[in-house]
C-alpha cells in the first residue's frame, strides 16, 4: 500500500496532475483537414508531436519519397450475414463524414489511400455474432495506407473486433458512424510484430441517443500512435473509451484521446490502463475533453493509470479538461502512475504464491476492469494469455 499511487520523479514527467492543464489555445480550435499539404511538416516540438520519437516515424510526417506507398495491407472480414462489406473508391461520398484528420500523418493517410472498406449494419439489425476485421501489415520495410468505415444505421447493434497483425508501416483512418439509438461495441487490437509502425486516427461520430464502447488494446509494434476522437452529432450519446496497453523494452505506445462535447446531455467515460517494463519502454496518454458551451448536461470522467514494472520504463500521462459551461452533470479526471507495489507482492508471496505467479495475479488484477469489459470471450482469453506472455519476458 505504499507506492502504487505515488509518482516517481525519474520516470514520470507529468504523471500526476492535480489541476487540468490549460493548453495554449482551446482544443476545439486545433486545425484539422483532409489534405496533407494543408499541414505543415512537424518538427517534433509541437504540442501534438512532442512525445513522439519522430525519427522512428520512418518519414511518415515529412512527405516526399518516404511517404510513397510500397505495399498493401490485407484486410479480411469474418462477419455474420447481417453485415454488408463494400470496397469503394475515394470518390464515395460517405467517406470522411465522421471527421477530418487531426494531424499530418492522418491527413497523409487520408490523402494516400486508393480504396476504402465500408462495413455497414442496417437499421434495427442486431448482429448474430461479432464481426472480426483482420488487418495484416504490408510486411517488413513496406509502407501502406488504409481507410475503413464502420456504419451503424439507426437502432442497429453490433460488436466488432479490429485486429491488427503483421509487420511494416501502416497509417490509416477508421471512421465509426452510429445512427440514432445504435449500439456499437468495438475492440481494436494492435498486436503487431516488433518492427511495425502504426499511426492511426479513429473518428467516432455518435448519433442521437447512441452508445459506443470503444476499446483499444495495444501490445505489439515498435511505435503505435493511435488517436481516437469522439464527437456527438446529436444529444443523448454515450461513449465509453477503454484502453489497455503493455509496453516492453523499446516500444513506444501513444494514445491520444479527444472527446468533443458540443451537444447537450451526452456522456463520455474514459479508462486507460497501461503496464510498462524494460529499457526504453515508453507510453504516452493524452486525454483531451472539451465541453463546449452548448453541451449542457454533459457527464464526463477520464482515468489513466500506469504500472511501471521496471525502473527503466517511462509513462507520460496528460489529462486536459476544458469546460465552457457550468451547466454540466459532472466532469473529472484522474491520472496516476506507480511502481509495482511490493506490499502486494509480499502479501501474495506470504501465502505461498511464488513471485512470478504473484506478479501475474497483480498485473491481471490491474487490467481486470478493462479485460472484464471485453465481451468477446475468445478475444478476452487470447489477450489474457498474451499479457501473461508479456510478463514472462520480464528479466527475473
Amino acid at each position, binding site marked *: 500500500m505504499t507506492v502504487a499511487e505515488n509518482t516517481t520523479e525519474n520516470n514520470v514527467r507529468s504523471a500526476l496532475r492535480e489541476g487540468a492543464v490549460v493548453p495554449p489555445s482551446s482544443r476545439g480550435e486545433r486545425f484539422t483537414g483532409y489534405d496533407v499539404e494543408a499541414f505543415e511538416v512537424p518538427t517534433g516540438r509541437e504540442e501534438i508531436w512532442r512525445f513522439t520519437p519522430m525519427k522512428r516515424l520512418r518519414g511518415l510526417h515529412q512527405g516526399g519519397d518516404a511517404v510513397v506507398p510500397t505495399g498493401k495491407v490485407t484486410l479480411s472480414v469474418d462477419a455474420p450475414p447481417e453485415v454488408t462489406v463494400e470496397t469503394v473508391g475515394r470518390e464515395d461520398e460517405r467517406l470522411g463524414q465522421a471527421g477530418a484528420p487531426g494531424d499530418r500523418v492522418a491527413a497523409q493517410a487520408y490523402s494516400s489511400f486508393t480504396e476504402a472498406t465500408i462495413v455497414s449494419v442496417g437499421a434495427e439489425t442486431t448482429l448474430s455474432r461479432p464481426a472480426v476485421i483482420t488487418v495484416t501489415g504490408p510486411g517488413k520495410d513496406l509502407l501502406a495506407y488504409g481507410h475503413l468505415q464502420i456504419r451503424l444505421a439507426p437502432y442497429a447493434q453490433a460488436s466488432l473486433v479490429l485486429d491488427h497483425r503483421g509487420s511494416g508501416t501502416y497509417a490509416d483512418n477508421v471512421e465509426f458512424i452510429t445512427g440514432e439509438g445504435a449500439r456499437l461495441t468495438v475492440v481494436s487490437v494492435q498486436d503487431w510484430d516488433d518492427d511495425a509502425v502504426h499511426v492511426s486516427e479513429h473518428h467516432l461520430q455518435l448519433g442521437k441517443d447512441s452508445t459506443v464502447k470503444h476499446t483499444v488494446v495495444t501490445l505489439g509494434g515498435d511505435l503505435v500512435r493511435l488517436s481516437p476522437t469522439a464527437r456527438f452529432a446529436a444529444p443523448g450519446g454515450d461513449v465509453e473509451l477503454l484502453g489497455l496497453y503493455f509496453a516492453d523494452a523499446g516500444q513506444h505506445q501513444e494514445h491520444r484521446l479527444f472527446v468533443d462535447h458540443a451537444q447537450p446531455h451526452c456522456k463520455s467515460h474514459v479508462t486507460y490502463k497501461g503496464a510498462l517494463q524494460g529499457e526504453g519502454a515508453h507510453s504516452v496518454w493524452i486525454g483531451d475533453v472539451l465541453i463546449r458551451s452548448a453541451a449542457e448536461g454533459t457527464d464526463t470522467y477520464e482515468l489513466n493509470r500506469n504500472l511501471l514494472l521496471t525502473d527503466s520504463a517511462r509513462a507520460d500521462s496528460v489529462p486536459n479538461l476544458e469546460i465552457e459551461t457550468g451547466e454540466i452533470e459532472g466532469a473529472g479526471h484522474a491520472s496516476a502512475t506507480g511502481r509495482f*507495489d511490493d506490499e502486494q507482492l509480499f502479501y501474495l*508471496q506470504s501465502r505461498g504464491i511464488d513471485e512470478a505467479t504473484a506478479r501475474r495475479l497483480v498485473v491481471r*488484477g490491474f487490467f481486470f476492469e478493462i479485460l472484464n469489459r471485453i465481451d468477446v470471450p475468445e478475444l478476452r482469453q487470447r489477450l489474457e494469455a498474451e499479457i501473461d506472455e508479456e510478463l514472462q519476458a520480464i528479466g527475473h
Partner: protein
Amino acid sequence: MATLEIKDLHASVTTDEGTKEILKGVNLTVRSGEVHAIMGPNGSGKSTLSYAIAGHPKYEVTSGEVLLDGENVLEMSVDERARAGLFLAMQYPVEVPGVSMSNFLRSAATAVRGEAPKLREWVKEVREEMAKLDIPSEFAERSVNEGFSGGEKKRHEILQLALLKPKIAVLDETDSGLDVDALRVVSRAVNEFTAGNDAGVMLITHYTRILKHIKPDVVHVFADGRIAESGGTELADELEEHGYVKYVGKAEAAAL
C-alpha cells in the same frame, strides 16, 4: 510436531533518517500445540518480529537465526517460508485490486498444498470456513481486501489461516479493530484451528482482551526489541493491572 526457534535475532529497518535497529536479540521457541502471547507496548518491535519471520523485504536481519524444524528460514524466500509452514496474519492486510478472493485463496492453497485442491471439495471447504467466520459468501468474488472494513480484513486473515493450516502461525494484532462480537468469532476460529491441527501460535497483541478468548500457554512481554520477561497467564493479569510502566518507564495501559 513442529518447532520454530528464534535465536538472538537482530533486525533493522532503513528509512530516510537512516538505519535503525529494532530487534535487539530475540530468543523464543514455539512448538506445535503451544500458544505464546507476545505482549508489548507500541513501538516495541512486535510487528517487526512478525515481519522478520515472514521475510518482509523492508526489514533486514543483521544477525541471529530463525529455524523451522532445524531448517534455516532466513535463507528462504517469502513464499518458500509460507510453503514450509509459516503463516503471518497481518495487522494491515494488503488490498490487491482486480484479484478475486476466491482466485487468491485457491492460488494460495495450491501453492501451500503442492497441488490444486479438487474443485468441488474446495468450494465446500471454503464455504464452511467462511460460514464459521460469519463472512457472507459474496466476499469470495470481491477483490482481495479491497474496500473491506478493518474487521472484515481480520476475518479474512483467519480464513486463510484455517485454509492454509500452517505449522506455526504468527497473528499480528489480529484483535485490533475488532468489536466484541467479531473478536469472539475470530477467537473461536483460532481456537478451532489450534485444537484441530498440530500447530503453534504466536499471538502478538498490545491488549489483554483477546487473552480472555484465546488462552496462552506462555506470556512474553516484549519491550525495546527483545523479550523482557516470560511467564504464565499471571503475567498477563499483572499487565492488565499495571500496564507496561515497568518495562517502558512510563504509563501505557495493557487493558482497554
